[in-house]
């Protein structure tokens, strides 16, 4: 929950990028679950939820969040919360637009537990906007991505998978 008193912390978090996709902040990504100031703003506790089980960026993100907040607070505590697990539903609309502008097709479709539709496809090529796209590989350069290709402009592109 965003409270007026924690606004300062949220403003800092907006500037902490995802190390793998630096166009997204940790807030855009939707992994910041809670921010609480204590001792009248002397310290802050941030709760993060990892994106993927084995994502190497998770530990880097926790370190970057701590470093960024230490400039504004005397004490910083970064906690990890696994449940409820992160889902691409938590990515902000602004984050989706930033992804598209960066050349990565944002996640399409909705996820539900326990079943998931893993046949999801990007709505359009992030470069030319054509919906004539095809999958090249179900896994990509990071755990969040698959490799697709536009059959109109012929460019390959990353797709941020629904998760």
């Amino acid at each position, binding site marked *: 929950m965003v409270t007026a008193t924690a606004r300062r912390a949220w403003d800092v978090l907006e500037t902490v990028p995802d190390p793998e996709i630096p166009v997204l902040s940790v807030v855009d990504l939707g992994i910041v679950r809670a921010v609480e100031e204590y001792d009248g703003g002397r310290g802050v506790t941030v709760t993060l939820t990892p994106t993927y*089980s084995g994502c190497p960026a998770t530990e880097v993100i926790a370190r970057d969040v701590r470093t960024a907040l230490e400039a504004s607070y005397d004490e910083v505590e970064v906690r990890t919360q696994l*449940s409820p697990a992160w889902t691409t539903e938590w990515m902000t609309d602004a984050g989706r637009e930033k992804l598209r502008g960066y050349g990565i097709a944002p996640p399409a479709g909705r996820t539900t537990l*326990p079943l998931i539709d893993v046949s999801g496809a990007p709505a359009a090529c992030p470069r030319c906007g054509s919906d004539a796209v095809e999958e090249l*590989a*179900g*896994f*990509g350069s990071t*755990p969040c991505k698959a490799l697709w290709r536009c059959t109109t402009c012929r460019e390959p592109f990353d797709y941020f998978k629904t998760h």
Partner: protein
Amino acid sequence: MVSPTSERLLTYADGALVLSHRLSEWMSNAPTMEEDIALGNIALDLLGQARGLLQTLGDEDQLAYFREAHEFRNPLLCELPNGDFAVTMMRQLFADAWFAEVWPALLADDSVSADVRGVAEKAVKENAYHWRHSSAWVVRLGDGTEESHRRTQEALDALWPYRGEIASDAWYAKVEPALAEATLTTPARDAWTQRSSADGWHTEHLGYLLAEMQSLARAHPGATW
């Protein structure tokens, strides 16, 4: 005394850890660049799942690097060598179908901790992508060329005796249709199967795997990046 729940979680954690290490052996050796990346991603997911569970059971490094082979509780299937690509994909199909039952069962179990639940919530979705990959490959290889069909049938016949620790009615119901679509001949459900690893018996292969996986941590105990 180890509680039944901990025993069960250790089986899942060790299964994911050992299989992850096996898949990592393909790195830079897979048939195509895309497959190299896919196997690396799947290995990473499994490693993360294993870590998440091991962290709830004790010191993850102690458990991963300083136990002996007879203390591991992974199903034997997970430790079997990669063989050719058909063996790797058939082994993955079997394991993915197992985990497809493991994770939802944990989600439905009110006795597990919030952290175990968090691992399972994430893993359910990762597993769905893994199954999509392994089942697509088994179908493509089985229903492919004469050679790929022969090799995939050989992989199925070789791995079938290792299903005993992971197979259930739901497992058969998931695996058999994929094998049929792959035009493979599925052995009988009641055919002979390996004994359980729950008492610490393993194949000869696990020791060699652990020797490699654990060597760095044992040479430099307590080392950090």
